[in-house]
């Protein structure tokens, strides 16, 4: 594929609001998972909640859209000058030439959960409830278009935990087709009861902060995040050290709705396709941001897939020990973490993991490692066997 520059990007998760706070937390190996105290949930699990989401102001013009997911969206857009950068891009390209391609798994479903508690005597939902502007998956792209005055093509991809990795591929295809000149991509997912109780029902939540790839790993910690990037074709004005998206690989497991193929066959296909799209061989990848959810079967399947594709140890880690599993936002959040890794030469530690399961054969980082980085890969896999891998490079095509 033709490389695309991440000219601007931002991320807000439990470990911090914005790039500087995120990088500071990663440098300090500081995680943000704490015992679940979300809403009325009473579950023996830990979560990665973003601070002060409920106090984010919602403009009167967007009152219909008021929801935790959109407050988190508004908070993130106004971080790192991201909204201002998009508005500048509108001046360059025009509002109709910028696409909006975002990922979420549950969007504003929390609003529907709360509305069901407030049903009237005849079973109706309260009149203040706004399905289309809060719960519906597309509401995320709708609110972003409204806030930023964008009028180009838009879609929300909702493929569970690969959602906001896949949007990078969809955006690249739209740009390649000439439908748009640039794309706002990203993902937002916020805490809700469906995912907390749902993953608990599947016995996939850990009672303690998640420990991806630890021999005693016993489940995920659910988190929430919003992460965005502006993708533009590189031009003569693109600074030389700009982070580029150079490869996207997508695949399906065709195996089971909620369990990965034991050998990670679908994950292997996604990684191989991403490498092929980037024109790279496996030995050129210097760091892998693993999907690494912390469940016994997910991590072992991913480790088998990684060792099959790379055939030699590659420094790798899952940052979900720090942020929690941010589900539909994970792909975009971890793409931004990879961009920070490339810019700062930091391979972030996989937190909470005492030592990597020796049976998995990974070069898993339990402490930060510093080295100049030029090519990294990020994995995102979801329910339904939906897999997506991204390759990000700094100075695409340049030799280290």
């Amino acid at each position: 594929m033709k490389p695309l520059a991440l000219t601007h990007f931002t991320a807000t998760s439990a470990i911090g609001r914005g790039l500087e706070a995120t990088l500071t937390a990663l440098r300090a190996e500081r995680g943000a998972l704490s015992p679940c105290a979300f809403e009325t949930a009473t579950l023996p699990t830990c979560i990665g909640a973003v601070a002060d989401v409920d106090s984010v102001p919602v403009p009167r013009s967007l009152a219909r859209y008021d929801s935790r997911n959109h407050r988190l969206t508004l908070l993130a857009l106004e971080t790192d000058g991201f909204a201002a950068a998009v508005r500048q891009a509108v001046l360059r390209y025009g509002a109709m030439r910028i696409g909006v391609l975002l990922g979420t798994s549950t969007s504003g479903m929390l609003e529907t959960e709360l509305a069901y508690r407030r049903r009237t005597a005849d079973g109706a939902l309260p009149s203040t409830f706004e399905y289309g502007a809060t719960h519906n998956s597309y509401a995320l792209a709708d609110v972003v278009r409204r806030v930023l005055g964008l009028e180009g093509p838009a879609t929300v991809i909702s493929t569970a935990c690969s959602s906001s990795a896949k949007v990078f591929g969809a955006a690249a295809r739209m740009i390649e087709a000439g439908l748009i000149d640039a794309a706002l991509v990203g993902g937002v997912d916020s805490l809700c009861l469906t995912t907390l109780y749902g993953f608990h029902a599947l016995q996939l939540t850990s009672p303690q902060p998640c420990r991806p790839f630890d021999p005693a790993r016993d489940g995920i910690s659910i988190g929430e995040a919003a992460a965005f990037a502006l993708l533009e074709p590189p031009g003569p004005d693109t600074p030389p050290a700009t982070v580029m998206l150079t490869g996207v690989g997508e695949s399906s497991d065709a195996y089971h709705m909620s369990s990965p193929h034991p050998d990670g066959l679908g994950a292997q296909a996604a990684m191989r396709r991403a490498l092929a799209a980037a024109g790279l061989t496996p030995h050129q990848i210097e760091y892998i941001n693993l999907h690494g959810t912390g469940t016994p079967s997910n991590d072992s399947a991913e480790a088998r897939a990684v060792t099959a594709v790379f055939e030699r140890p590659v420094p790798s880690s899952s940052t979900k020990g720090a942020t929690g599993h941010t589900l539909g936002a994970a792909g975009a959040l971890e793409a931004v973490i990879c961009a920070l890794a490339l810019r700062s030469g930091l391979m972030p530690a996989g937190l909470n993991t005492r030592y990597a399961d020796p049976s998995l054969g990974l070069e898993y980082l339990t402490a930060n490692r510093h080295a100049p980085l030029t090519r990294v890969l990020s994995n995102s896999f979801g329910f339904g066997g939906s897999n997506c891998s991204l390759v990000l490079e700094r100075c695409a095509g340049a030799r280290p």
Partner: protein
Amino acid sequence: MSARGELSAAVRGIGLLGPGLVDWPSAAAVLEGKHPYQYAATTAPAPALLPPAERRRTGETVRLALAAGLQALAGTSTDPEGLATVFASSGGDGAICHEICSTLATDQRDISPTRFHNSVHNAASGYWSIAVHSMAPSTALCAYDGSFAAGLLEALTQTLASAAPVLLVAYETVYPEPLHAQRPLLDAFALALLLDPRPTAGACARLQAQLVQEAADTLDDPALERLRTGVPAARGLPLLRRIARGDRGRVVLDYLGPLRLAVTVTPCP
């Protein structure tokens, strides 16, 4: 691609399931005006391709999407194992959403693990991959009332990028009350198109699509027009009417304000 931002592909197969519409050949006669439209409740056949354990777990939404997709492939000698797929739906499975939210409103909150993993927007995509053993890329998207055009755009850009066929399935089922009052979809409906960027024998039409700012086409028959506006996936019916007529022409499909999707349809010899 002939012009900037214009996408092109041949339609090799069509699947259609909706109220009074049981398959493409019979629906084509209705859309062409040869037979009157007669309402009858939509029925979704059980997906025989799925292993029994998986089949039991599927609800109406997945069954409908899979059935429409299989209709589009029937008689095209397309191997679904290597076929990329795009699933477009504005709402996913409303019945599951209702069950989960009802349970979460009780003190127990013991939601069913199967319902939870079936609640994902990409459930149809996941079950399709399992049913046809396809490890090809598959996506699931939503653009609310513009979901059909969004799905068509995603499928067309995929055919351009991969130079290979892509199956688009747009589908909706009706939300139960009390959600129905908030999102009153008319009936269950699914429309599938097998798109191929290569010149192929046996295609029924060639499509050239581009974004425009014009009013969307409507349907003359009031009952079909109610269906078009009443279900997001049925926003694709004007395209099917044009294909059914078998002559060259242009249709404008609903998308997102201020954009619409104009499609020029050329019959294949």
